[in-house]
């Protein structure tokens, strides 16, 4: 596999000359899969929404601007909640926390998982055994209860939520990266680096990391989806930052204030849809990246289509 360097967190972007290569491949990957383009578009739209939230949101999110549980109308497109606060504004402002926590936690998970995977796969032996048994341990931990416990002990804050989610989601990334590192380790140019007298750390950063970076990126994007999911879950359970507005707290609030028995579907459904949309988009992009970068997943050459016979032309025809 010909790898490409990416701007994933720990890459010390080593090769300027390959940049067009990575760009063109990414563009190609998106063009070949319209689903990835859709995912990318949705994510981009939500990012724009989150960045410009204070300017876009039509009403304040801290004070009531209408009646309690008002149904969607021209003035309140998505109605209002139990306090009379505009739901659309909450949804727009809430996207900030959800996306921020989701991406930061995924980066934390990617950093830990990437490092563990690279070190474990590169050095092998006892290092590998110790790190991988630790990884196994993290894989089997049921995340939600542990997150509840840790978040409760550390106290609710944005930073803690990011750390807790990051610390519990790195294990699968570590496994995937380790496997890829092990195979890159066998390549001639990595062995050659060793004979050149290169230090292991340099070999990893210069030769191995760029080869596994695309896979790491794909994994980080997939982890973003999971992190958003867990962030919402924690908020819903009331363990998140109580002062911040997020999609999770919107749903929690609606649940606590008996929105369902009031028939106020607009208090729950839009936030739920937003979460689902972002998660699906992350998966679409992550999958597309993985497929584009893993040649074994592209099935084109498996086509059972016979070769073609061409009519005789030119020289052959006149000879016969």
């Amino acid at each position, binding site marked *: 596999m010909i790898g490409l360097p990416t701007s994933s967190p720990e890459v010390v972007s080593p090769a300027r*000359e390959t940049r067009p290569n990575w760009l063109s491949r990414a563009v190609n990957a998106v063009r070949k899969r319209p689903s990835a383009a859709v995912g990318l578009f949705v994510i981009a739209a939500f990012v724009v929404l989150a960045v410009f939230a204070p300017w876009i949101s039509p009403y304040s999110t801290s004070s009531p601007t209408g009646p309690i549980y008002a149904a969607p109308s021209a003035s309140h497109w998505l109605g209002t909640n139990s306090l009379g606060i505009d739901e659309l504004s909450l949804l727009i402002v809430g996207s900030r926390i959800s996306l921020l926590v989701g991406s930061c936690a995924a980066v934390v998970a990617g950093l830990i998982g990437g490092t563990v995977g690279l070190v474990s796969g590169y050095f092998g032996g006892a290092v590998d055994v110790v790190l991988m048994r630790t990884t196994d341990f993290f894989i089997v931990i049921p995340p939600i209860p542990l997150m509840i416990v840790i978040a409760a002990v550390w106290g609710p804050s944005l930073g803690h939520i990011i750390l807790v989610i990051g610390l519990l989601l790195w294990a699968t990334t570590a496994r995937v990266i380790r496997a890829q590192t092990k195979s890159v380790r066998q390549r001639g140019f990595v062995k*050659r680096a060793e004979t050149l007298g*290169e230090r292991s750390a340099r070999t990893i950063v210069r030769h191995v990391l760029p080869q596994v970076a695309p896979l790491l990126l794909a994994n980080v994007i997939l982890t973003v989806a999971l992190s958003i999911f867990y962030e919402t879950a924690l908020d819903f359970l009331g363990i998140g930052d109580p002062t911040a507005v997020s999609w999770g707290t919107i749903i929690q609030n609606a649940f606590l204030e008996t929105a369902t028995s009031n028939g106020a579907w607009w208090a729950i459904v839009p936030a739920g849809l937003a979460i689902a949309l972002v998660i699906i988009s992350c998966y679409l992009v992550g999958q597309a990246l993985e497929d584009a970068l893993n040649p074994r997943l592209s099935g084109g050459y498996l086509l*059972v289509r*016979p070769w073609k016979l*061409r009519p005789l032309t030119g020289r052959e025809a006149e000879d016969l």
Partner: protein
Amino acid sequence: MSQPLLRVRGLNVWYELRGRTEVHAVRDVDLDLDEGERVGLVGESGSGKTSVIMALMGLLPSTGSLSGEVLLSGERTLERGERSARASRWRHTAMVFQGAMNALNPVKTVGWQIIEPMLVHGVADKGQATRRTHELLERVGLPGATARRYPHELSGGMRQRACVAMALACRPKVLLADEPTTALDVVIQAQIIELLDDVASELGMGVIVVTHDLPVVARLCPRAAVMYAGEVVESGPTDALFHSPRHPYTKRLFEAVPDLSLGEEVSSIPGSPPQLDRPIVGCSFAPRCDLGFERCTVERPRLRLVTPDQLAACHLNEMPSEQVAPASSHELGPQQSEPDAAHATCGPATRRDPLLRLSEIQVKYALRRGPWDWLGRRPREYVRAVDGVSLEVRRGEMLALIGESGCGKTSTAQAILRLVEPASGTVEFDGAEVTRLTRRALRPLRRRVQMIYQDPYDSLDPRLNVRGIVEDGLVANRLGDRSERNVRVRRALERVELSPPERYLERLPHELSGGQRQRVAIASALVLEPELLVADEPVSMLDVSVRAGILSLLSRLCHEDGTAVVMITHDLSTAAHFADRVAVMYLGRVVEIGTVREVIRAPRHPYTKVLLSAVPDRDPCVRARPILLGEAPSAAMIPSGCRFHPRCPMAEPTCSELDPQLEPAKGHRVACTLAPRLQTAPAAVTGAEVAP
């Protein structure tokens, strides 16, 4: 005139590439094959030779398309595309694929795979097919019980034999062999060649052998066709092609192949074959041809009769005879090899003290590990890959390590650099004991000993450009500042004949040809100015036409610049041509060591003699009968006494008890108790004879 068995007219093959371009891989190929006749198809990789036989089998990939007429006993086999091809495939034309490892299904028994085509084509019922499978296996030299075994239980040579049996299952009229001997050891190669020879003459099939290995064609095929850039440029009797080629490419191709005859010049063909995704104007070989003239760049030469039985596609043949003459005496290109004088004595940089001294090196690999071995416990069983090897290499000297695969030659080389830790013994480099150094102290030494790997497609980082790759060693060792590194990189590229360096600095590995890649790999080692180069099969992955160039480059580095070179190779001809001294290894031991002249001309160990006899000559008139022996035993089960005695044609009862050691003297040494007696009658064992 009688109808030939197989008649191919105007065969063209195209492959569709991504981005809507199309490669015209085979262009207007005509081919005739009579019953019982054997034809060789030779050429560099990418010359379209494999495409030709894949088209004959109807086995092109879905991106392929073909046109042309293929008549098998007067019947058109491809006229209805895949449907008509399927009916005749394996029934009338069968094939021995390249790489026997992949041609067999790992989850089915060998017998099942031989029976399958017979049942599919309705040639035999189940009982008959089973009986025939036994016969076939015995015919190809395998016990009949092999039918119940799985491919992984067989060695490489046995698998290739099973593939031959499979090809013979339906009694095909035409047998196609695609590189039947590549990836096999010399001794096994010779066996497979003998087998194909026997089987083909016994069954009277027509055989087409596709190979880049000219000696194989010289040995097997009385007639051959040379392919270049998708077309047949010359065809005729093999010895005529060798002795009086009428196309410059044929001549240069034969010159590029070393054989055991010491002193003959070997030269590579400069340049690379043309791109086939655009139309070729004029002669396809013109850009690389040193005899070309104006007409060659304008008009495509047609294949015509130049002698009563030789066809060639070259305008030179239409010129008056005195102007054709230069074809046999033209000047060699700049990549000419060192003359023979280089072998006898070393260059001026020679010094008496050995630069590298291995004594009693042992390398062991753990065979079976217990569940707690990662904690540092000792594994229970070992393979002794290298078992007491002692060698010396001086500056300005090229030592070739020769042996079958699994004999420990690569492990020995890795032990020199401590890429594997020797279990015992010492490595001394320039007076310092490498085996006693700590990892940290080893690093500066790594700079002075550099390694060149077998596969230049794997050993260059695909993301770095040539500058980055060559510079890597300097940066890693913190040598020089930016401008100095730049100067050194350029100098290294010039030394490997990639000049001007500017043309290559910014290129990525995938933009280079195989030969250029290997040159870049060598440059990346040279930039550190090493005193010792360890080259692990440096040319085995490269095309025949560029091999000689790489080898003479190494030889020049060695003899002119005084770099010591240890070259690992399984190819005796290569060693004979380029090395100064040869060490023959067998099952972890050096069994014979001496100068090239001594070892190749007057081998004393029976194993060396066997190896030498297995090398086919590139001259088709020299037909030496190889000595056949069983396959190499595994290093996990080393026989008692002399390791070679179970396979040795000369073995005596005492050989299974006495473990011969390398004679302690200097010079040509051998580890065989019988050697003193055998020396008197060497002809008896080589069995070489020159055909009239």
